[in-house]
């Protein structure tokens, strides 16, 4: 049993960890939308591919590199493969449609999503795969009856470091500046000598690699990988991105963490069958009050 403040604190910890997952995946959604106004519905499947590659590579290297070294190598491999996958999807499926109506692009994204998840479904024969690292996930710190495991702390730290580096990258580097410029006006960027295609490609690689890290972390922490695991998290991350203000990187982080916290508190105080009703009800309210999301800017239609 918990005391009242311990209970709330423990649920806040739970929500923060879940939220940082959502945030990592939401970042990719938001970056891609910010730059080419595409809702990349395949993003959840890229996350799933990351988890899948992480599990497969760890299975192959764990004999030589057990524990954290092996996990690090597997996550790096997952980032590479997912980054490549994101790049290929962009190059062959999205780029030819950049000047087509937005709806065509959206349908293509749904198609890419189905192609990826069904391919993995065929490879895994729809069976869930299980990750066993031999690490003891239950080790951690206790404050009274509040438990925080080391692996949760590591995940939180990794998410924080990634989000800070990404913000710095976008705001302090030339590449980041080019990304922001393309978000404003692609044609002018091309005129001033920015390689638009290259920067768009880079955005996809970055977003996909972030999703792969989230997938890898899910694989290590939760331990099971299924071909359809990207679907629900894709929807949740998309929601998080919209709440934060789609296109805004800090907004995606804020939205993800907010959604995680709302779900945790909803589970505690209304019961798990009502948590989504509670979380999404509040989110609708936020959108009514701030239609562009918490940190989104209202867009000026360009003619």
């Amino acid at each position, binding site marked *: 049993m918990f005391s009242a403040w311990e209970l709330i604190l423990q649920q806040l910890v739970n929500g923060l*960890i879940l939220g940082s997952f959502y945030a990592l995946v939401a970042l990719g959604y938001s970056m891609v939308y910010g730059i080419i106004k595409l809702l990349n519905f395949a993003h959840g499947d890229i996350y799933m591919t990351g988890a899948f590659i992480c599990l497969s590579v760890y299975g192959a290297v764990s004999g030589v590199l057990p524990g954290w070294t092996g996990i690090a190598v597997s996550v790096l491999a997952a980032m590479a493969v997912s980054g490549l996958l994101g790049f290929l999807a962009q190059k062959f499926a999205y780029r030819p449609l950049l000047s087509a109506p937005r709806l065509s692009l959206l349908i293509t994204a749904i198609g890419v999503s189905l192609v990826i998840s069904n391919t993995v479904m065929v490879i895994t024969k729809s069976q869930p795969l299980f990750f066993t690292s031999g690490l003891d996930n239950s080790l951690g710190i206790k404050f009274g009856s509040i438990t925080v495991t080391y692996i949760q702390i590591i995940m939180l730290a990794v998410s924080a470091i990634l989000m800070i580096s990404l913000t710095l990258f976008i705001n302090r580097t030339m590449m980041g500046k080019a990304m922001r410029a393309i978000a404003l006006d692609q044609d002018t960027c091309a005129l001033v000598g920015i390689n638009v295609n290259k920067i768009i490609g880079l955005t996809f690689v970055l977003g996909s690699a972030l999703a792969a890290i989230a997938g890898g972390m899910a694989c290590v922490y939760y331990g099971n990988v299924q071909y359809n695991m990207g679907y629900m998290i894709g929807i949740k991350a998309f929601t998080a991105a919209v709440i934060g203000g789609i296109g805004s990187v800090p907004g995606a982080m804020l939205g993800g963490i907010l959604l995680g916290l709302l779900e945790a508190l909803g589970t505690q105080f209304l019961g798990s069958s009502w948590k989504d009703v509670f979380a999404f009800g509040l989110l609708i309210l936020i959108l009514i009050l701030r239609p562009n999301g918490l940190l989104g800017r209202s867009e000026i239609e360009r003619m």
Partner: protein
Amino acid sequence: MLKKSVLTSKSAKSFIAKAVASALTAVLLTGCSGASSSSNENEIAIGVISPTSGSEAYYGTDMVQSYQLAVDEINAAGGVLGKTLKLYPEDDGCDANMATNAASKIIASGADFVVGGYCSGATVAAMPLFHDENLLMLISAANSTEITALGFEQSFMFNSPGTHAALTLTDLCLSLGTTKAALIHQGDSYTKNLSDICEEALPKSGIEIATIQVMEKGAPDVSAIVTAVRNSGADFVYWCGYHADGSNVIKQLRQGGYEGDIAVGDGSASVELITACGSAGEGVYVTSPPFVEFAQGGDKFVEDYKAKFEVNPGNYATLCYDTMYVLKNAIEQANSTETDKVRDVIANIEYQGLSGLIKFTPERELEVSNFIVLQIEKGEFKLVEL
């Protein structure tokens, strides 16, 4: 499991299919009247209806093989009433439409008895056809209460209905001294139904329901549920869902500091649960269907089955094997293959089979639960005597 969900979606279609199939059968039978009885005087024909194609093919095939094993043994020992048993398997594809076709074929082939039934939806669709022909149907695996609700006097259900899982669970809780139990399901018809049954059954034995939680299918993080369960003061958690998500729940319960007992339902009764849970799975209980590995005399069955079919027997193998022996004993006792006579014998039979005691209530359901309790111990399932 899947058996239940098929029912609702197909029921409307199956009604039409049933009507069409009945009409077809009627045409077929009048077309070849007289030829419908067993073609061979020295043979007792037994139709088998089970899904040997589609998503449930593994279970359907296992059923046919289990019947075949029993039939071969019986024939080798001299048959029944001087006649040999012969199986006529038909595929119901776990689909109501296919099931009515399969039933028509079985009827047309002149079967004396029918065994089988895996998916409840398909089984319920086929039953009226056999009923019209006054054929005895022994249902080995399907266990929806909708089957007995039809009230057909010549159908018997050899598998425990879901309500029996709750009885076995109650016994387990009482032996562990549980005071407050938490139930976790996944919101779909099978897992929700199991949770509902337990919610009703446990308080009758003085076990309080501390909380009922719903885990979204495939949701990665359940720590909020874990915290809610710990806060409810539950000393027992029953997971009503399937093993893939179940392993996640079990691991996070332990990571989140829950120290009470954990049990899982038959949807999670798979050896994969053990691999998936790793060390967190130690001590977890399973209310399981009667796995042959834990049956008395099961070793010989597994050996014979593997020798014959080169695979391991499945979850419902013992039930099918027992079904065939009950039929054999009943025919011998009745000294006849007439439906009504054999039916009366089965209604009063007491047969100790591999799957447990087979004895029927007036509703033609099993009287005693055949669920067994297993516990994960050092990475293996061990039978728990309650």
